[in-house]
């Protein structure tokens, strides 16, 4: 088994804060389900599922699609789309590696908007627009910006009002790129058993059944919720969002509703 390689956190990255003490919070396992471990239940999973999930944890794919410079840039972007500075460095989920794998293998979601380039090209163009926007605005590349400046630049893409009117956004509709980026990041993060532990999700459940369906009751092997207060790092603007009714609804959704 190859030991997973993680890129170290940028030294200036801020941690979320305990509002009572003002001290940064760093945990082996963030979330409100202390000690909960889906992996501890793997003996109750079917063999095929167990092999797949363990492989996801143990074998982090190498970077093959992104260039070294792109990978550094993408790693920094991912750290803002799904920040992990509250996770202990051994328990960070390697998001970029799995996005790189999807793009390297050219796996698609079954559709492409007529006004969008391929996912591969969209990611390359998007990274270039982000980095060049940083240079035009601050004179340095995106990775060299302060965390707050990075967050603000990305938030302008989220708001569909890029701080820099880069010509790439004419070929790459900014809201579609934003959805592609966030989608790819959550696809990886919330596929990982450590994220399931964080959010108290049950994980694989075949052949063992659930027996407590109502009132949000925990199964005997699940953990009850223990909430605590936390604030996003002061250098972040990603924990703010507008009222749902006022929000610009993107004109189409990413697909799988997990639904009907």
């Amino acid at each position, binding site marked *: 088994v190859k030991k997973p390689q993680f890129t170290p956190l940028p030294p200036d990255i801020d941690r979320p804060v305990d509002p009572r003490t003002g001290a940064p919070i760093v945990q082996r396992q963030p979330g409100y389900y202390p000690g909960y471990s889906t992996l501890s239940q793997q003996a*109750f999973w*079917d063999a095929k*599922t167990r092999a797949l999930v363990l492989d996801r944890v143990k074998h982090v794919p190498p970077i093959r699609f992104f260039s070294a410079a792109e990978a550094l840039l993408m790693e920094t972007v991912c750290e803002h789309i799904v920040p992990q500075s509250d996770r202990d460095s051994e328990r960070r989920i390697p998001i970029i590696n799995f996005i790189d794998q999807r793009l390297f293998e050219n796996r698609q979601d079954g559709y492409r908007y007529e006004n969008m380039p391929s996912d591969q090209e969209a990611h390359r163009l998007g990274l270039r627009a982000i980095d060049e926007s940083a240079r035009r605005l601050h004179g340095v590349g995106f990775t060299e910006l302060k965390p707050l400046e990075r967050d603000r630049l990305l938030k302008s893409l989220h708001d569909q009002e890029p701080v820099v009117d880069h010509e790439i956004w004419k070929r790459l509709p900014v809201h579609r790129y934003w959805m592609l980026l966030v989608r790819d990041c959550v*696809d990886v993060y919330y596929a990982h058993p450590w994220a399931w532990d964080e959010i108290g999700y049950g994980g694989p*459940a075949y052949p063992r059944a659930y027996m407590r369906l109502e009132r949000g009751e925990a199964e005997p092997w699940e953990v009850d919720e223990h909430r605590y207060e936390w604030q996003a790092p002061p250098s972040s603007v990603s924990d703010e969002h*507008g009222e749902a009714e006022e929000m610009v609804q993107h004109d189409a959704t*990413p697909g799988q509703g997990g*639904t009907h």
Partner: protein
Amino acid sequence: LKTPLLGKFEPANGSHRLGPIQRVKTPMRRFRDSDLVDYVIVGVGSAGGVLLQRLARAGFDVVGFEAGPFWDTERDWVSDEAGSHNLYWEDLRITGGADPLTFGANNSGRGVGGGSVHWAAFTPRFHPSDFRIYSEDGVGVDWPMTYDELKPYYELLELEMPVSGPAYFPWGDPHGYPYGPHPMGGVGDVLIRGCTKLGIRVSAGGPVAILAGSHGDRPHCIYRGFCIQGCKVGAKASTLVTHVPDAIANGAEIRDNSMVARVELGKDGRVSGVLYFDRNGQQRFQRAKAVIVSGYAIETPRLLLNSACPGFEKGLANSSDCVGRFLMAQAGNIVLGRFEELVRMYKAPPAHALTEEFYETDPKRGFARGFAIQTVGPLPIAFAKQMMVAKGAWGWGMRRVMMDYNHWAALGLLGEILPWADNRVTLAEEKDRFGLPVAKVSFSLHDNDKKLIDFGRKKVMEVMWAAGAQEVVQEARYAHLVGAARMGSDPGTSVVDKYGRTHDIPNLFICDGSILPTQGSANPGLTIQALAARTADYLISQGDTIFTSNKRDLERPPVRRNLAPPDNWGKGVPRFTTRNPKKNAVVVNR
């Protein structure tokens, strides 16, 4: 516990495993390309699976072509959201229009069983009014048939799947269900609470094609919530577990991993077979006396358009210019509510309660037709994407709302969007790995659709608030695909007649969701399978006439109840009878 429950994973020897108990013996019967088979069916999904079973049982030589694999569910499927993408048609399609649709996991299946492998399995019938919305409301188009013509097939398929639900379902043509309703999950509780507060009737525990009790060699539901990722349990009905085993036992062949490229037209104006790429990518030709296209609402029109030939320059069977047109999706807005108490919506099947109280036209609302409200149960990745759209969540906001995943419940709008000629499938310039042009889909909402969606999503949000939610948000979305090769009496405005026979070519049929003229606000799966059983009865009644004559007869066939799969044995008792100690594998003894 060192070894997993049910033992170590063992390779299947000479059989396909469908769930922990059911087995299909392989190898199956194989036809040669040079054999002139009776029927080729293109696509073994919801409709194709039922057709294959019926025609084989009636004694026809029939081959089902499937672009995807013939699943061994123990080997191929996982209890994992990210790991289930092989179930979806993820080849490229280009999407556009004012309100572009998404495909893949949203609505498109691949592999034997097709979309029925990853549907949530809600199985409401269409209402009698759905068959005549032009007459009643002046919108859309009437069907060339009535509800009463389809009703016996609804009843048959509700038994063959079978469907669990209430003893009395009050809407449309009131009826009851063969298996009892499922227990409520957290989301069903929310729907019942909200509806009850507002005086809205609810159907709890179904109708859903998921076993509430064991049925033959299929165990009952274990409430693990992975319906859309393929039911490894085999409790959820898919034609893979309900009809395909009986089809194979009766001599049907399934040629999997085989992509049909063209339907060939002979000099006599009749189709002669299909050109296809086999599992090794070799181009081959299978001769057939008749061809049934069952590729669903995107691949069916794509295949016909790609089969253009002299005499049919705009696409095979497309003299009406309706192939690809009148594509429909249903409004599928997801309304999400956060509750103070925990919900844990990943438990229980996503589909377990609904209301059709708003299904019919109400002139006071200012638009025609209506909608249903249904439970949904997004797993974490789907929920994160919903939060991305509904709340604009990202960064620490995404992490925060996801830490509250267990506090959220999700309800789905299912609203009728009317058929419009400009919502259509055409061919794109891009080609797939076989060199075949991919589908380009254009979709735009019209005035009635927008009014309906606006009213519907507000009503679902009202129910969510009434259930006690502290915060309610919503995501616009579409569900299901139908139309694009619609049936009708007039060959100038439709592609097939009411039995699925193309108006243009006497031995070419279409049978799948694409023939629906309108869609109601019921999930289409049950109706698609009921139409397939009805078409099968028609074909069986017609006998060799289909193969030898251009005569077109629209006489109603008798309902053949004895063609159902023989699954009544041992109902309610799963048959774990012996365990082979050497292999540690379960052996089923019939």
